[in-house]
């Protein structure tokens, strides 16, 4: 039994396999399909102060090796999350990372304050990169100077809880954004969110997604994600959590070798609901077989040159 524990800021995780926000609901939906205590943590659907109905339908479609979504950050809101979801989540024994976003800086700060104070929330993940909602998302994460300021303000509101900042890949160079998170006092970076994409139904000549553009995820984006994660790792000292197209143990290993301290699995939860648990088990078997005593010894072992 290899040592799979990893540390992200103040947060200690059982293992480095997490499930990604927006692909794991509020954690409860997977009961009976997998054992949520066997994975490092799960990230909640992105939460906002007020509940949101999200975008109009259709808001998902399939693409080669991936999918596009334009859910529009539908969520129950932080109040309902606290009263209707958290009691049940606490009972599962899951490690909970509350993913959140806001429409304004004040919203972000207030959401972070609320979630940080919530019993059973172990860490926060700030989404500054959702391309779906008119006023949210990309604007917050699109300017390094503003991102640094936002990170600092939110970190203060998080009152000691680990703050992970999740970056957008829809930038020319992700490195200044990684630095902004580090300089703003963020505890960790997670990357990547979805790439902007589009698909057309040629029969109806309509976009397959009502709002035309959506976020591309799944195996198709893995090479882009891995490259950006590697760039973040080379830029900052804080831990980086790798996300994007993970579907197999080899994919997990690619991100760890590139320097990610942990990974999140997104789209593939839809295809194989128990994938995170399977990958955690396979990672353990792999480490034992390869004589790797602690998984952290794998992190950043890429041999270049």
């Amino acid at each position, binding site marked *: 039994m290899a040592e799979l524990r990893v540390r992200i800021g103040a947060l200690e995780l059982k293992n480095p396999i997490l499930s990604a926000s*927006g*692909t*794991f*609901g509020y954690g409860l*939906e*997977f009961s*009976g*399909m*997998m054992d949520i205590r066997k994975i490092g943590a799960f990230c909640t*659907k992105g939460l906002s102060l007020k509940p949101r*109905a*999200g975008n109009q*339908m*259709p*808001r*998902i*479609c*399939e693409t*080669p*090796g*991936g*999918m596009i*979504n334009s*859910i529009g950050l*539908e969520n129950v809101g932080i109040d309902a999350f606290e009263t209707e979801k958290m009691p049940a989540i606490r009972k599962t024994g899951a490690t909970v990372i509350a993913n959140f976003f806001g429409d304004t800086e004040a919203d972000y700060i207030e959401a972070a304050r609320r979630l940080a104070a919530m019993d059973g929330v172990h860490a926060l993940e700030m989404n500054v990169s959702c391309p779906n909602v008119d006023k949210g998302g990309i604007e917050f994460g699109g300017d390094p100077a503003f991102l640094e300021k936002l990170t600092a303000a939110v970190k203060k509101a998080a009152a000691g809880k680990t703050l992970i900042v999740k970056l957008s890949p829809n930038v020319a160079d992700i490195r200044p954004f990684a630095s902004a998170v580090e300089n703003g006092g963020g505890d960790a970076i997670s990357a990547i969110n979805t790439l902007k994409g589009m698909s057309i139904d040629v029969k109806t000549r309509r976009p397959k997604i009502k709002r035309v553009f959506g976020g591309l995820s*799944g*195996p*198709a984006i893995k090479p882009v994600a891995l490259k950006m994660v590697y760039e973040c790792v080379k830029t900052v000292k804080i831990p980086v959590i790798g996300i994007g197209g993970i*579907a197999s143990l080899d994919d997990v290993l690619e991100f760890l070798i590139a320097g990610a301290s942990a990974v999140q699995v997104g*789209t593939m*939860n*839809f*295809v*194989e*609901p*128990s*994938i995170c*648990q*399977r990958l955690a*088990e396979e990672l353990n078997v792999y480490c034992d077989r390869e004589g790797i005593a602690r998984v952290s010894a794998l992190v950043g072992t890429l041999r270049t040159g």
Partner: protein
Amino acid sequence: MWFGADKTMKSKIVSSREVKRGYFRMEFEFSGDAAPGQFVMLKVAEHNDPLLRRPMSIAGLENGVMSVIFKVVGRGTALLAEKRAGDHIDVIGPFGTVFTPPQTGPVLLVGGGIGVAPLLFWMKRNPPRAAAAFIGGATENDILCADEFSEVHIATENGSHGRKGLVTAPLVEHPVYRDKTGYLLACGPTGMLKAIDQLAAKDGLRGELSLEERMGCGFGVCLGCVCDTTGGRKRMCVEGPVFKTGEVLWRN
């Protein structure tokens, strides 16, 4: 448990045959129960393309063998149609709400095209309850499983089988519809369901409609399948696919 942490756990296909041109009926082993109205999510290919599972209504479940009936409409269903008895298929489910007509009283089944699948399952589980089935389709080739219902009324758009026109025509003429004692269970294209919903409202009948939508997961986490109802925004895969008449707020 209906599936394990092992990705390779799959159901063995017992049979697969083309019942009408482009329509297939597939049977596979399935341990566990399911109720009429529910669906399963099938993985059509081993690899990442096509990536997502495909939802299929359960058309029957007996002695550990589940059946589905599907139409080839795209890549996923084309791949499904290539599978043979003895092959394995990766199935998860059952998911979704079930048909819950009142304990007593006659039930009218209305199916459009592939929509007969869940009705067939309901009929098999409740043989004496179905007063009549109404089956519609574009042409004779799109009328499925008609001989498995005892009283059946058929309508095709081109008149090649049964009445010419929409399936709602024979429905509204049926005595059990006209005397308003019939409870409707309907599944089919959105246009048909909307028409039935409006008829039921106008004529004062109650019933349930099984809807369809693109589904990313099938178990409530992707939020890709929502529809608006009188009770707010619902996920079609968890709070549906079966909704009560009068509940759905139809888009356009």
